[in-house]
């Protein structure tokens, strides 16, 4: 029997039992569509989180005081006996491989402007924030450089904070009060939105030295570093270590590069996508049992037909291939329809809920399709072998 004849023959048998065939494929379609939809949502989430992390660029490293981490955060957020100072940040920014360094102190205080006041986040930072954090000023300018140690009392407002405190009025040049200290507004940042739960728009930026005074602290929480792209992360880490050990006498700090963080996030998120794919595949497995059942029934129903074919000269191999290709036709149809349903559903979700990040995970879609075909092959083999083993005489005799 020629392959084309085989294909035509099996297609005709499949389409002669329309309801049965469509129900069998429906089982597979549901399973495959579930895998496609779930993994696409997983992949979308993956991309979303990585984008959140890389919006600051990838040539970043941060130094925190203390060698141990607490609560999954560095010891910097709490007290430490081994402080990082603004002088450390200045020292690091002079390294050849470092493009810019930002000392960071984070806190929370009441901001007063005229009659209005608001409690919000305060970030004590350096002049290179726009460069390192990839955020621009919308109005005015950012904190001036070259005065890290004895800065003037300037403040830059986040987008939302400016709107809250000054409404439509121009905030530039206005005097505001943070805690009990007075500052002059010299700039407003552009809209940036939430950054991993931290609202960058409801924030005020002041010089790090002023923030240390305001909060009565001696240690920076971290130093963010932007390194030049022609240097490898490892060489940068080495240079930072050398400088800080020379300054402190011992290694009492931790360095994490953006790449290390990204790798960690990447592996966690990939596992998550794999897990949802596995959940979806349970349905695929049940669909496979469905094909197996229907093929078994088909063989037992068509015993006399098999007998006739054998009597007319079809050999065992032909019968085997006939039934196997029928199973394959069912599963391929299910695979195609499932992938199509999944893709359509993802497009619909994307259009209906733009806030939910989705991305078609082609590797998983391909895997699901191949899995469907393999399922067809495996669940077709046993019934096909059963059909092929039938004795023609016996088969003809059963009615």
């Amino acid at each position, binding site marked *: 029997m020629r392959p084309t004849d085989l294909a035509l023959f099996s297609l005709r048998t499949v389409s002669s039992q329309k*309801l*049965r065939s469509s*129900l069998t494929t*429906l*089982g597979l379609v*549901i*399973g495959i569509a*579930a895998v496609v939809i*779930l993994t696409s949502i997983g992949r979308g989430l993956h991309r979303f989180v990585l984008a959140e992390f890389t919006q600051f660029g990838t040539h970043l490293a941060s130094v925190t*005081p203390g*060698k*141990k981490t*607490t*609560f999954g*955060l560095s*010891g910097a*957020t*709490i*007290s*430490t*006996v*081994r402080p990082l100072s603004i002088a450390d940040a200045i020292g690091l920014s002079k390294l050849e491989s470092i493009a810019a360094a930002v000392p960071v*102190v*984070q*806190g*929370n*205080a*009441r901001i007063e402007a005229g009659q209005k006041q*608001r*409690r*919000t*986040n305060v970030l004590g930072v350096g002049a290179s924030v726009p460069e390192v954090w990839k955020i621009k000023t919308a109005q005015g300018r950012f904190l001036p450089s070259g005065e890290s140690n004895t800065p003037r009392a300037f403040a830059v407002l986040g987008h939302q904070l400016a709107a809250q405190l000054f409404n439509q009025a121009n905030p530039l040049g206005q005097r505001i009060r*943070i805690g*009990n200290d007075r500052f002059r507004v010299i700039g407003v940042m552009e809209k940036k939105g*939430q950054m991993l*739960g*931290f*609202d960058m728009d*409801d924030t005020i930026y002041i010089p790090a030295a002023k*923030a240390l005074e305001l*909060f*009565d*602290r*001696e240690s920076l929480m971290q130093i963010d570093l932007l390194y030049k792209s022609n240097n490898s992360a490892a060489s940068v880490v080495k240079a930072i270590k050398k400088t800080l050990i020379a300054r402190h006498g011992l290694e009492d700090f931790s360095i994490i590069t953006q790449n290390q963080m990204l790798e960690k996030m990447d592996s966690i998120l990939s596992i998550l996508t794999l897990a*949802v794919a596995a*959940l*979806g595949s*349970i*349905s695929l*497995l*049940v*669909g496979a*049992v*469905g094909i*197996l*059942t*229907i093929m*078994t*029934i088909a063989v037992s*129903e068509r015993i006399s037909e098999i007998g006739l074919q054998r009597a007319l000269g079809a050999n065992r191999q032909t019968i085997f291939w006939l039934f196997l290709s029928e199973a394959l036709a069912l599963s391929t149809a299910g695979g195609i329809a499932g992938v199509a349903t999944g893709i359509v559903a993802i497009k619909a979700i994307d259009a209906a809920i733009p806030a939910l990040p989705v991305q078609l995970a082609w590797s998983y879609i391909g895997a699901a399709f191949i899995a469907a075909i393999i399922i067809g092959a495996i669940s077709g083999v046993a019934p096909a072998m059963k059909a092929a083993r039938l004795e023609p005489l016996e088969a003809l005799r059963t009615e």
Partner: protein
Amino acid sequence: MLVSDTLAQAFAAINTQRLRTGLIILAMSIGVASVNMLISLGESARRYIVHEFESLGTHLVIVLPGRTETTGGPPPLFGETPRDLTLDDAQALSRSPHIAAIAPLTIGLAPVSASGLERETNIFGATHALRRVRHLTMAQGHFLSASDDSTGSAVCVIGQKIREQLFDRQPPLGQWLRINDRRFRVIGVLAAEGESIGVDFDEMVIIPVIQAQALFNTHSLFRILVESKSATAMTQASADIRNIIKQRHEGEDDITLITQDSVVNTFDKILSAITLAVASIAGISLAVAGILVMNVMLVSVSQRTAEIGLLKALGASKMQLHGLFLTEAALLSIAGAIVGVVLGELAIATLQALYPSFPLTLPAWALISSIAVALLTGLLSGWLPAGKAARLNPVAALAKR
């Protein structure tokens, strides 16, 4: 037709097609078993976390310095404030009649050393009330006393891991422990607690809060843990705390309060939602199994056309035929559900044997609802084929033979 007759008839019909029946039961049981197993995992994780939070203490209110008006953001868990929470603030809270215990906390990171061994670890500046609030148990010696709080004597209580690492074989009690540039006498060792919500008491050194403030050169507190007298007094206590601190801070409301039950409730909700989502994803497989039941029932109706014709000719009503085929579908799905439940229990038991420290339970509602859902799926998918069988014309059905 008696109910028992219908059952017997349906059972006989199923029994003649062993392989087919086995496969349907397999499909149904895969679905039921996976739903049960995932619910069990999710539910156990939920219980575990809720239990962990409850073991933090009872009727707990956590006071943090600072407050943001940013909506939807997290509370200011970390970060500095211009006006600190001080020890005096903490002591002033005792004015409230609804408060049973007050434990001020300062947390920091410092190197600790003893007999030439050094490591860096978390230092907790605390008072004797911490033991009561966090339900800490001692392995040796005693905890900080009330007089240690007021005089700030140079004593410390260490966790099990610190004891192992710094005092390996020697008795730690009465030994000196150096923290940065100060010396503290070890007066107690905590019983092994394991990690609870990120705070590892086994790797902790607890010193009087006054000493910690000197060590870290700060007079601010990281947290104040407050235990209210009863669950009902908690709202009262929260209001009192806010008022007292406001008075002391020149009328400024600059603290954030987190009550334990709000945290527990949040986690409870999140984890329940995750469990439900995961279980319903697995539940899709039950729908697939239902389609299989429908398909096979359709096949068996068309195969048994002659039989149906005969039954009708002998006087069987539409209702009876309908019931007969529905019973068949229901029996199939119940058998699948029972096998699934057994498989699920086996899987849970295996997991439990592999990870004995994580208690796994399958809630009764999950068991019952999974069987109910399986039965419902069977009945729904049996409806169409049963209707088809009932509508057959007896003459045509008999003649088809």
